[in-house]
């Protein structure tokens, strides 16, 4: 038990935002929240699957600084995201915009679910096969009785 508590404490210590190595000072809490959500939403262009907040690659650090600067300049979230997309393409968005290219991505799962529901409904609506009541003839009954007796 003691060890368990120790181990849990250990995890707790290291899980508290270990990634935040930049020391940006924000004028107010709203800007800080916006910054944090932006660096979580934006993907690091060099890394395969990390957002700007998680990555410690130099380019991610630069882009975090850029996000901070843009926030300081009073840019809106939309403008900041637009700034990134203009330079790095839609790749930087973890939630891609809905366009003809991303229809499959956005609506594919719902479409597959719909197919699944349709299949299930189809199966459920099938009339159950009638159970035939099987009746043994006299001869078979005798035979059965004989077999059971021999046992």
């Amino acid at each position, binding site marked *: 038990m003691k060890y368990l508590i120790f181990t849990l404490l250990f995890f707790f210590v290291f899980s508290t935002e270990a990634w935040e190595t930049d020391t940006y000072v924000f004028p107010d809490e709203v800007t800080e929240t916006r910054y944090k959500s932006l660096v979580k939403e934006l993907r690091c*262009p*060099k890394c*395969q699957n990390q957002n700007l907040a998680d990555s410690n690659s*130099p*380019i991610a650090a*630069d*882009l975090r600084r*850029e996000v901070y600067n843009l926030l300081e300049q009073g840019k809106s979230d939309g403008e900041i995201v637009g700034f990134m*997309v*203009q*330079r*790095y*393409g*839609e*790749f930087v968005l973890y939630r891609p915009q809905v366009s003809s290219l991303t229809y499959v991505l956005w609506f594919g799962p719902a479409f597959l679910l719909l197919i699944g529901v349709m299949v299930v409904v189809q199966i459920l609506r099938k009339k159950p096969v009638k159970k035939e009541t099987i009746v043994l003839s006299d001869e078979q009954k005798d035979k059965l009785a004989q077999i059971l007796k021999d046992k």
Partner: protein
Amino acid sequence: MNKIIRFIPLILFISLGIILYRGLALNPQALPSALVGQKMPEFVLTQLLKPKVMLTEKDLVGDIKLLNVWGTWCVYCKYEHPYLVDIAQSGRVALYGLNYKDDRDDARQWLKDYQDPYLFSIFDPLGKLGIELGVTAAPETFVIDSKGIIRMKHVGPIDGKVWQEKFLPLIESLEKELVAGTS
């Protein structure tokens, strides 16, 4: 009819398998550049070898320009360097450098040690122009046409094969455009 329906899941599975299998062959690092077809972004930065000279996008002159992003910290830049020297000597394109997130003295030493193929290098220690250009790492090379429009972005080192297959066809078509434009 029923028999065909039974095979539908198998067919779906196989086609999905083929799509995903082909996906394995794609290079996830190769991103389409958002800047192709756009104007070279504006910048004001110093020249690497002459810290007092300020450069802007207007200083990049030439009919066909190559802007090569490099740094002394970048391993593949060393690999592609001899090819860049060859390209510069061919005189077919104007080769400029963008010294990206580097130390000025280190970069100078590098050019002294390995020969300087660039007409000049832009010194961008903070990666400001890098961000404007959507640079993710070095080496990257941009092809810019006579009107200052970015026509191609190549991520990764240039070598003989890449030059033959990726750059030469574009340069040839740009040269044709130029001839058509002047006549």
